[in-house]
């Protein structure tokens, strides 16, 4: 199995505070990798290191390698803007732009100049279909995205992300603001998307990690305590700390 992303000896600092310590993580292509751990353990920070969104925060520093298809994304010549097209992101709260449903999805293709004449409609339609939102919004594409319910908004954000045809989708607790039904719909969507994309999801929800992911990494105080097949991690974790966390005795 090929690794889409290979993280080796990775350290990350906010000023003098070391948030991530000696990380070595494989992200397998076209699989869902879940990152779990208590708040402040560094899993979201790690996620934002994968598309270098932390670059926008002053005083941060990264050491080590993050290889995307064998190429270090922290190498000096890397075009961060181009990198972020390849590695898309879905955020914790549904955050559509206060524009129409159509314009939200079309935003990425427009700024990236992907839309040749006439094909933009098709791209928007395909993205909405892939995000299993098309049937609900096909007759109201010009309506404001803010009129959708939170679950629909989050699927719209996923559609907006896949509209730029990324290879990897990072999801930062994408269901934490959603009700259980909407959460399950997003999980179903992830299972569909993973045949075309590599997905990394940060979650606080143990059941979600167990249900939806192929691989699970458990973070604790900036370190990766354990990484492995999801069923292995949840049925027979090797580390006592992992077991304590997933069974709810620590966290």
């Amino acid at each position, binding site marked *: 199995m090929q690794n889409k992303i290979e993280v080796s000896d990775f350290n990350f600092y906010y000023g003098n505070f070391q948030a991530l310590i000696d990380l070595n993580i494989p992200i397998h292509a076209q699989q869902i990798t879940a990152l779990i751990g208590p708040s402040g353990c560094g899993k979201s920070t790690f996620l934002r290191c994968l*598309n270098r*969104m932390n670059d*926008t925060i002053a005083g941060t520093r990264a050491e080590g390698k993050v290889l995307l298809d064998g190429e270090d994304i922290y190498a000096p010549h890397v075009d961060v*803007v*181009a990198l*972020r*097209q390849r590695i*898309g*992101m879905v*955020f914790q*709260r549904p*955050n559509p*732009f*206060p524009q129409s449903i159509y314009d939200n999805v079309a*935003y*990425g293709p*427009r*700024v*990236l100049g992907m839309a040749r004449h006439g094909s933009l409609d098709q791209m928007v339609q395909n993205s909405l279909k892939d995000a299993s939102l098309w049937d609900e919004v096909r007759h109201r594409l010009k309506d*404001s995205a*803010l009129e959708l319910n939170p679950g629909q908004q989050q699927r719209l*954000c996923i559609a*907006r*992300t896949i509209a*730029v045809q990324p290879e990897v989708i990072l999801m930062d607790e994408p269901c934490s603001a959603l009700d259980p039904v909407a959460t399950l719909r997003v999980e179903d969507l992830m299972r569909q998307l993973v045949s075309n994309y590599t997905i990394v999801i940060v979650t606080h929800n143990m059941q979600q990690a167990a249900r939806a992911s192929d691989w699970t990494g458990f973070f604790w105080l900036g370190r990766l305590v354990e990484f492995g097949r999801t069923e292995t991690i949840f049925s027979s974790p090797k580390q006592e700390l992992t077991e304590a966390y997933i069974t709810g005795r620590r966290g």
Partner: protein
Amino acid sequence: MSRQQTQRLAVILITAVAVLVFIPVLLVIFYLIASGIGAINWEFLTAMPRNGMKEGGIMPAILGTLILTFGTAIVSMPVSILAAIYLAEYAKDNRLTRTIRMAIVNLAGIPSIVYGLFGLGAFVLAAGFGTSILAGALTLGIMTMPVVISTAEEAINAVPQQFRTVSQSLGATKWQTIRHQVLPHALPGILTGMILGLSRAAGETAPILFTVAAFYVPTLPSSVFDQTMALPYHLYVISTQVPGMPLSIQYGTALVLLMITLTLTLLATGVRTSVRRRRDW
């Protein structure tokens, strides 16, 4: 006195003082309307002055003020908005940025007559524009910049950070993010600041005193190098320099000037309220 009585008294006092603020505004407006409305008719607004400005209209002054306001916008808007974008989006906290900010604060504090003298020295004399619309618009433009820069920067900062984050996570460059997400959402706020700046420029006398305003010109300006009459200066002239000037013309002129600045201010307020109602974040 019981605590409840103190409370009641405090509310009454505070309300009374707040109402007091309102009184001068109303007095000025009603007094001007009462004294000036009689002078205002079609001829007053559209005719040239006659008979040593004691008869006829004030059209050249109205037109001059409109031209100057427009010129001020052309001078001030691009520079101010670009400066605000730089300060809000690009400037790092370093010596250069602090110097720029200090310059803006100081510009805002300069008395308008000093702008007038600066305009005289810099644009009328040194640059050789003469007493002209160009020199006046440049002077007024610089005077309005601090207001416009500050409000525009505020409007840009008020655009939620997450729009920028999302836009950049989709592979947009920083400039595309500013151009397609930040500026459209900040535009109403920027416009508000712009209009407020212009309404101040429209009513100022001192900056145009030496740079553009004419006591009386029999013809309308035909280029930016011409002088022009303007309402604030015209008002000053007819109130102090022309003996035997009918009071109704003086009040009428003041009323027209007030209406122009008041319209601009109300327009700014309107833009701001309508956007606040539409905004959902």
